[in-house]
């Protein structure tokens, strides 16, 4: 889409300021603030009920917030009706218009903005070229595959060169290979066009792949707004640690001897939280990634390592890696992940010790109202895709 690179309208900065939306007494979005820079690709990540879709609907204008403000390049957006917000949108299940062909679908936003004639045709052709469907203009929507429909939806969303591109689970309906390919393509396109993108997904892998920054939401609250790297390596609390990536998570308070109280006698050493402050005497969460956990015979773990005992309860191959599932005395399942190419030296039912370099532990605060604040049991979280 190089011909347009010079005359494109660059994306706007979006300042979300303490946006709150209540349904009855429960806040669906609870005082969420995000400073999204012009040209930034931001993903709202969270489980269902986290408020991510509600927040997107508020930004799009389909719902109004109860409190807070939305500033686009410093201008309040909340009082602007949907059709004048100058947004482009990619919808879940595409929402392509079945009575219009590809060209007419892509032309729709331009038609609504009163653009006609050769200029409109040129812009439609450019948009179709940008999504690699230059010859598909006359096709009917029903003749397209899922991936092609997704591309048409994307072309339709960018054709008017909107100040904001909003995407609601844009890849949810596609199979994995197609999704991977389109993730990269959407990232490329948004950067080439300088679009400011707000994307919504429940798929952390998609969020990590595509985003400049991720806003992790949980029950309406903003947990963390950070780069993928920060979110993965420096989660602010146990909610973030549990949600992003595969993790072994222990919650408890630290005893004088450096072990974690109430968590199968986990020995751990780091005296400071991930943000550098002292652990103190409060309750904390200790998280370690399965790929950093090693497995050995009972009693033979290095003295300096953090460790926990258990019994192998399962061995699962997942492509190039292998998951060893270990159940501790209290029944918690932990995971060690190792290279599948290495010879297997444990068997099911074998008692083992899991150990890891103390520096691999990530120690975070407990989120207010998180499950761990009441139940001190450690927890293993596995991602949907191994």
């Amino acid at each position, binding site marked *: 889409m190089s011909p347009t690179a010079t005359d494109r309208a660059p994306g706007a900065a979006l300042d979300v300021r303490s946006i709150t939306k209540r349904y009855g007494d429960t806040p669906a979005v609870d005082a969420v603030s995000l400073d999204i820079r012009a040209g930034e690709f931001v993903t709202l990540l969270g489980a269902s009920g986290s408020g991510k879709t509600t927040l997107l609907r508020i930004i*799009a204008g*389909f719902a109004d917030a109860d409190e807070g403000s939305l500033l686009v390049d410093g201008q309040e957006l909340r009082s602007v*009706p*949907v*059709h004048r917000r*100058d*947004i*482009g*949108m990619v*919808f*879940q*299940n595409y*929402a392509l*218009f*079945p*009575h219009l062909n590809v060209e007419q679908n892509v032309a*729709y*936003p331009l*038609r*609504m*903005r009163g653009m006609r004639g050769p200029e409109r045709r040129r812009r439609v052709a450019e948009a179709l070229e940008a999504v690699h469907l230059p010859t598909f203009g006359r096709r009917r929507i*029903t003749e397209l595959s899922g991936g092609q429909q997704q591309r048409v939806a994307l072309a*339709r*969303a960018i054709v*008017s060169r909107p100040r904001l591109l*909003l995407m609601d689970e844009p890849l949810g309906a596609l199979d994995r290979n197609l999704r991977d390919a389109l993730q990269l393509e959407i990232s490329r396109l948004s950067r080439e066009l300088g679009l400011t993108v707000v994307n919504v997904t429940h798929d952390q892998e998609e969020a990590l792949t595509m985003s400049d920054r991720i806003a992790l939401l949980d029950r309406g609250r903003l947990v963390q707004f950070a780069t993928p790297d920060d979110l993965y390596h420096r989660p602010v609390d146990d909610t973030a640690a549990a949600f992003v990536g595969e993790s072994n998570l222990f919650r408890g308070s630290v005893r004088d001897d450096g072990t974690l109280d109430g968590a199968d006698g986990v020995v751990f050493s780091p005296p400071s939280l991930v943000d550098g402050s002292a652990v103190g005497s409060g309750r904390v969460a200790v998280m370690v990634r399965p790929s950093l956990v090693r497995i050995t015979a009972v009693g033979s773990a290095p003295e300096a390592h953090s460790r926990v005992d258990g019994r192998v309860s399962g061995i699962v191959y997942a492509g190039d890696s292998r998951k060893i599932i270990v159940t501790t005395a209290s029944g918690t399942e932990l995971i060690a992940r190792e290279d599948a190419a290495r010879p297997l030296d444990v068997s099911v039912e074998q008692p083992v010790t899991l150990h890891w370099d103390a520096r691999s532990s990530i120690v975070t605060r407990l989120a207010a109202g998180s499950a761990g604040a009441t139940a001190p049991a450690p927890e293993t979280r596995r991602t949907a895709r191994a």
Partner: protein
Amino acid sequence: MGRVLTNQGGGRRWWISVGLLGLLFVLLALVVPLAVVVQRSLDAGFDNFADALASASFIRSLGNTAVLAVGVTLCSAVIGYPYAYAMARSGRVVSRILLTALMLSFWTSLLVRSYAWQVILNDTGLVNEALQFLGVIDEPLQLIRTPAATLIGMTHILVPFTILAIFAQLRGISPDLAIAARGLGATRTRAFWSVTFPLSLPGLAAGSLLVFVLTLGYYVTPQLLGGAGNPVIGQSIVEQTNALLNTGVGSAMAVILLLIVVVILGVAARFLGLGRVLGLATERSDR
């Protein structure tokens, strides 16, 4: 599908035999009487047809019927579309209320509904009494025995067909499409006219066609509300058969009506697709 697994052969045979019963019924109840009518219409060669077409009153009733059918179709569309839209797009409670009201009207005998309109539109009916009470008029208005009365009554009786056809079509259109249109720069009004309305047209067409064709054959309601002044085809046929005892000519008129209906359905099937004409629109239009 494996024959062994599903025992489809036996199941199919069973359905075919049940279907044959239905076929037998259709043959006896429809085809046989129809054959009798056709045979009678031809009992004097084509003379009955010549007489029918030479009859000024029959030609006039054809015109009356066409005007009535167009009127009822248009009124049903104008009244029915917003009703169907409200039914398809409002919340569960409102939608249920609208559907219940519609079905109550639909299930009430057409005779009862025609008489009800007679009571309302009579010289001493509700409308005239009310207008006189309010002092708007001194003498009762001529409401009953006018084409307008027939139009009102027929629209009331047939509008459920339009509503249900449009409703079925609208239900198949995802509300997300209109929302998407707004997200892409359309006002609510433009989103409706550029997306929802064009997608609902097959339903509107099917409902309208149904109402148009049904109107052509109505007799009772025009007789009760319109009187004898502006007879429709049905009234012409009854007059020939019952009053003038000209069963041959009456049958010829009935056959002419049948041919008109067949031609209309044929043309509609050609341009709208037979399935839609029969209200069997199975292709969902939102995917």
